[in-house]
């Protein structure tokens, strides 16, 4: 049953990739994936919080009393989220403006609290680090993939870093529905469906 550390890391990339397998953390998945850049930025911010909170929670797991563990998790997570918010404001302000309210909302992201509760509180520091990193990178990949599909069809571009790259050329008529909120739901549904189709084989 015991997985190796490498397995703990890789499970987040496919087996338990958060939005598609655990169907957790959908708020940022739906809200900020209008462009690839937003998706990656949001994913990296979440990864940072996930890794830091996992490390801290697992190293303190002997100290934290069971009855107030959720309160402790929230304090730890909220601290790191605020750190991320301040750092993003200081260094990548345009991205911060685009992500807006969704950065502070990482606090209530089920993925982060879920990993603390379900994994880090029961496992060692190195294991938790691998888990946090894997899940975080999986989350980033999922967001980037969704962002890529939505941006490609909704806008005809791909924005990896600041400047959008035109993919379809000027004759393309953007399918704006994809960058609207209902488009996010339908796109996520189709991707979930595709994942199940691929893995059921």
């Amino acid at each position: 049953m015991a997985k190796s550390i490498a397995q703990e890391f890789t499970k987040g990339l496919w087996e338990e990739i958060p939005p598609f397998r655990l169907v957790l953390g959908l708020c940022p998945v739906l809200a900020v994936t209008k462009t690839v850049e937003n998706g990656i930025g949001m994913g990296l911010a979440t990864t940072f919080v996930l890794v830091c909170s996992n490390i801290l929670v697992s190293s303190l797991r002997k100290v934290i009393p069971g009855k107030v563990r959720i309160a402790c998790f929230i304090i730890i997570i909220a601290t790191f989220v605020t750190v991320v918010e301040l750092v993003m404001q200081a260094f990548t302000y345009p991205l911060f403006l685009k992500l807006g309210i969704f950065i502070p909302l990482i606090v209530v992201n089920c993925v982060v609290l879920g990993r603390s509760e379900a994994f880090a509180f029961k496992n060692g520091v190195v294991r938790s680090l691998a888990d946090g990193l894997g899940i975080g990178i999986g989350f980033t990949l999922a967001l980037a993939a969704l962002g890529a599909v939505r941006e490609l069809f909704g806008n005809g571009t791909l924005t990896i870093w600041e400047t959008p790259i035109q993919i379809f050329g000027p004759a393309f008529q953007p399918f704006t529905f994809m960058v609207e909120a209902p488009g996010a739901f339908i796109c996520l549904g189709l991707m979930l469906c595709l994942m199940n189709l691929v893995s059921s084989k």
Partner: protein
Amino acid sequence: MREMIKMIVVLTVLSSFSGGLLAAVRNKTIDRIEVQQLTFVKGPAIQAILEGASNDPIVDRFKLEYEGGEASFFVGVFNGEPAKIAFESAGKGFGGEIGLMVGVDIKADKIIGVGVTTHSETPGVGSKAQTDPSFTKQFQDMDLMSTFQVKTDGGQIDIITGATITSRGVAIGVTQAGALYKSLKPQIEAKLKEFK
């Protein structure tokens, strides 16, 4: 009882650790954040208003205190003289506060430009105050000391179609900017003299 004390101790220690960390990060980043905010939020409006200035208005800024607050003034140097300044004001719009940047020619007390910096107006309707320059252009060359009102209220400003409240908010914001400018003018002039 022991468990109770343990809970309290752990929570207290965690909270103070968290507070300490956040204070440290905030101290390290506060200056950078201010510069970033000025460059990205107000920067475009300032640049548009003080176009052609030979200095960087965001670097050459000063603060003045007035009753109930503090205002930043951005100086634009034209022909070697700090002739124009831009400063902030705000008016209440349809979806909350509309942040404005008002540029003034010091000598003539005339508006050289008005730009919307932050707003939460309806996209496509009220947001035109920011995106459609023909609305804010109306303020150009008007006397800042006068009172601005939209035409529906018997004033001189054409409204944006469908966005009376937004237009009214901008007009009120510019009027307030005039009042602020009037009350602070001596200090502004003093500061500008130092600037030379």
